[in-house]
């Protein structure tokens, strides 16, 4: 791009930019890494290697810079979620809304995570992923299954979305922009 556009961006970044630290957690194979890929580069792929540990990625959307911590969801990594969620602006919890058998486990892990003192008042965004599949749970079902109504003292939102069809991702981004500073 020509040099003056980048100069302009730098200026506008100086005056209008917002940033947000985001941690993405959730059970394995719920679509966390896909979310980062779709948000970051707009690419969706059927084959995503399971994350070992975590990945970190900086994504710029408009005048918002998102620093995204994508944490692995396999059981052996769940104890480390708290370490990467403390100090962030938003926690995103992704659920596979098609895999209803795992809702109990997801509910347990979510509430386990939120019970940490260090994470008090951090806004929570719950995404029911894979709504392009038949027979997925609706937002209301998710709220019930994950007992989101019992969460107190923090902003909680829940959207149903799909990384594959990119459905509803625009409102997710809006929500994130709202919570950045």
């Amino acid at each position, binding site marked *: 791009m020509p040099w003056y556009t980048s100069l302009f961006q730098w200026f506008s970044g100086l005056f209008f930019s917002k940033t947000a630290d985001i941690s993405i957690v959730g059970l394995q194979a719920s679509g966390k890494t896909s979310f980062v890929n779709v948000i970051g580069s707009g690419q969706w792929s059927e084959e995503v290697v399971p994350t070992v*540990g975590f990945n970190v990625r900086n994504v710029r959307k408009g005048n918002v810079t998102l620093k995204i911590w994508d944490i692995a969801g396999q059981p052996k990594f769940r104890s480390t979620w708290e370490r990467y969620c403390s100090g962030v602006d938003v926690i995103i919890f992704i659920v596979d809304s098609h895999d209803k058998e795992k809702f109990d486990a997801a509910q347990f892990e979510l509430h386990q995570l939120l019970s940490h003192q260090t994470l008090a008042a951090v806004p929570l965004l719950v995404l029911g992923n894979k709504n392009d599949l038949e027979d997925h749970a609706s937002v209301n079902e998710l709220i019930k299954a994950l007992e989101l109504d019992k969460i107190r003292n923090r902003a909680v939102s829940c959207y149903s979305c799909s990384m594959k069809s990119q459905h509803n991702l625009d409102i997710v981004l809006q929500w994130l922009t709202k919570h950045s500073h």
Partner: protein
Amino acid sequence: MAFASKKDDEGLSAYYNNKTTVIQEARVFNDSPISPRKCRALLTRVVHLLYIGESFSTQEATTLFFGTTKLFQHKDSALRQMVYLAIKELAGTAEDVIMVTSSIMKDMQPNSEVIYRPNSIRALCRIIDPSMAQGVERFFKAAIVDKTPSISSAALVSSYHLFPNAKDVVKRWANEAQEAVNAKSSTSLFGSSTGGGYLSGWGGSAGQQSSGYQAVPSASYITQYHALGLLYLIRQQDRMAVTKMIQQLGGGKTGAGTTLKNPMALCMLIRYAAKVLEEDPNVQKQMLDLLDGWLKHKSDMVNLEAARVICEMKNVPTFQLMRAIGVLQLFLSSPKATLRFAATRTLAALAVTHPSNVASVNVDLENLISDSNRSVATYAITTLLKTGNEASVDRLMKQISGFMNDISDEFKVIVVDAIRSLCLKFPDKHVSMLSFLSGVLRDEGGYDFKRAVVEAIFEMVKYISACREQALSHLCEFIEDCEFTKLSVRILHLLGIEGPKAPQPTKYIRFIYNRVVLENATVRAAAVGSLAKFGLNSNDAGLKKSIDTLLNRCLDDVDDEVRDRAAMYLRLFRESFLADTYVKEESVFSLDALESKLVSYVNDPSASIVPFDASSIPKISRAQAAAEVARPSSLETVGVPAKKEAAATPQLSAVEAQSAYIQQLKEVPELATYGEVLGSSKPAQLTESETEYQVSCVKHTFAEHIVFQFNVSNTIPDTVLEQVAVVMQPLTESNLTEDFIIPLPSLSSTTSPGIVYVSFTRDSPEEYASGSFQCVLKFISKEVDPATGEPEEDGYEDEYQLEEVELGAGDYIIPTYVTFSSEWDRLRGGASATETFSLSAMESLKAACDSIIEILNMQALGGTEDPSSTSVHTLQLAGLVVGAGGAGKALVRCRMTYSKAQGVTLELSVRAEKEEACSLVVSAIGG
């Protein structure tokens, strides 16, 4: 680095580099945005703390670790490198380190920046667990053959570290490692690093360091060194492959054709060659040719290593040795201190075995006596002491005393050991040496140094009678002001033994009694023992009386042990026959046997109603006991690398083996009811040593049973033997009934050797059953599928003929030590037998002695196992005969004559506590 500038200020640096401060400041990891400069400085401090030996608790390390991982968000390359260093160091203690795997793997990708890749590879091998090695295989294979040397090296070194935990996976990388050895470096300039600093890794394990990113220019070919290390690690079990590798990389007879350009790699190759040489004498010729070529290599390091290996080799031809010495001689006049040091050190070690050859470089060594480097001078002098003649000793001693104070304790010990061996070589020089030793004894020094001096003086006392009195008085003087309890106790013991024999024993009493007054309890107790020996061993009535008085005073001591000893010795004074058993007794219990008996006595609750029976414990003479505990005299090991000592560890002594068997048999439930093992034989080989299946047999005697233990080894890697059993068929009437066989369910080459037990009941336990057995090894042989590692379904039954097993008198006898003449007289009234045999087949008295000892399994006493005359000899033997009713002593006197015509004529006299024992011995020789 921020802290480096403040390091001069000691107090501030202590605060600044304090663990707590560092952990508190770790908050900067969570700052937003991150300051790479601050984080890097902090990480440096963390790593610095770890390097100086500070340890973090698991929780602290984990917190720091996770803080560090958050820095992956920043792209600063210097910070990222520091992050990797910190991760490597913290990986050992922190938990959940696996979290960074993804982040590290991202940096390992070929499209990642070159500066990240080596670091990330090195960090990865600390993070992943063995099960993940398979997953990174592709990366590693590619990285090993990468064109960039730093990446290739990193991958090789990491593979080296992964190897112990993931052998199978890493083994598959051998081809890549081979390629890395042969790789032509693209930016090839010559000028390999032949600097002086390479000796830092001289300890022997130079191949195992991998700390940090080494920005080595590719011209050094360091990758070859790493690749060679990995290749060897993969192949080390296979001697043929190693030999082939050495020949291939050695580059032919002159060494010119080698592809190895890195001198360190060549050094490693030379060490491998040395190892192969040691194990397989057949390749000596080829290896020596190679070594000879390396002596002429252009790198000093390689020359030195080759010379060292030749010097340490056994049975090396003299002309070859002289060539190696010639190379070392050149180094002696080198301007580099490291070279001089290495050369003198090698020569010092060589002088122990080949003093005459080393003597040829004495002129050069003389010049080094005044070397400014004290370590070089020390080695030069000790070498000269070993090679020099009597005339030069005094001069050298004077030289040494000149700088004794300048050298470290470690070198002082080397000097003292050299003097010690010198004393024995030139006993006439004892005056100057003793005065030297007593002089250094007064100097400052640590325990090791003082012990070396004291031991040297002990040795002089032992072997050079002329200086005994003088030496003892030096020791007396030393204990007046000795801070080491151990040494005081040893000296007091020696005084107790040697003092009474001196012309004027009284003069030592004062020194010893001073200890009773002034020292701690341990030394006081030793002093009491020492005093008492003067009283007991002296014929002077006046002396006895004074000792009596002194010991009476000790009865008021505050320490129990001191009072007890005093009381005991006072009693011995009154009842002198007791003294014979407690002070003058020449034999002691074999400590290992005594310990295991006592342990089983204490553990067995039912045994506590009867007193402990010590009669079945074999005894050994004091000389034997001393030989057992003696540490290898340091004269032989001066300056020789430590690996040699490890190789020389002696086989388990018979008694230790016995204790091990008892433990092992106890763990077999079927044999638990048999009671105590009365005796175990030495293992006897039932197969040739190079066969497919190797079997050895140990016989265990119980009160009512005989148990045969077969140690079976399967040497074929791809087969598994199942249901392994040994079938024993008595060849003669043996009075034994077979109870059961405990077979092995499965035996592979990795689980070998396994144990098969065969148990027999003794039909009449009061008799000593004997006989021979035909043995057949039976098993089902199954091939192992190399792909799965599982044995195949179908196998075939097979059997394997073993040699016969004999059960004889020796299996009921345990060797023991007694004082023959007195014991022989004591048993006059017991069972006895005398018979005469004609052993016409025997070719000498020595052969007859050996076979009698072997048959009877008894202890030969007083060195009688070696006949001094060729025609007449008396062999004295003692043993404990074990049986159902407890053990009984048996003594044997064999009077033998030898003539060419008739062979050996033997008159066998046996005296034993029991009649059966007596007939057992006679029948064993007669049978």
